[in-house]
């Protein structure tokens, strides 16, 4: 099947994307760059988890991906708000 043949390449591309985002996270000259790299990192992790779910045929991966999506967005908003206002709870 075509899908099974292409899955390792898709996983490799997503892992390369994760590595690039991690490089920017470690190197980024400013705080906004690091937060943006964290944001990209969790979005790519989400894609990687969904692809792993396709590969192994489990449905548990989707719940993990949903949780990572929720918590990653909350993390980005909290970090940005904290650096903007110096306070999270307003």
């Amino acid at each position, binding site marked *: *099947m*075509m*899908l*099974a043949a*292409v*899955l390792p*390449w*898709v996983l490799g*591309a*997503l892992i*390369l*994307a*994760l590595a*690039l*985002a991690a*490089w*920017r996270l470690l190197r980024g000259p*400013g*705080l*906004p*760059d690091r*937060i*943006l*790299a964290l*944001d*990209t990192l969790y*979005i*790519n992790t*989400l*894609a990687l988890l*969904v*692809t792993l*779910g*396709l590969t192994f*045929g489990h*449905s548990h991966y*989707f*719940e993990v*991906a*949903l949780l990572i*999506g*929720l918590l990653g*967005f909350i993390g*980005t*908003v909290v970090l*940005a*708000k904290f*650096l*903007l206002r110096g306070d999270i709870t307003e």
Partner: protein
Amino acid sequence: MTETLPMWADALATALLVTGAAFALIGSIGLARLSDFYKRLHGPSKATTLGVGCVLLASALVAAVSGKPSLHEVLITVFLFLTAPVSAYLLVQLALRHAPGLKPPLPATRPMEQGVTYPQAADADR
């Protein structure tokens, strides 16, 4: 799971998956390689979000065709497409406030001279 798919679903899911992975990779290359923060923001906030959306669509298609449709993928897609612009907006606000030195300079302007009209304005008068 992927052995029982009909031909069209297999081809469509493969195309969506490859497109999605390519967009995610291009967005991350943009994040890593572009030169200042406002350029780097484009990659993740547009390309990577679209790539992940394509991967999720492929997964939803495979699940629906193989007989166990679920709402998880649609839920993740909707949530991601709602939240990505919000976080990009917050990051731009943060960059404008927190690191104003990152803001690119305005293009150079010439002082207005007496009696000199710009070509576009002259064309508009005609």
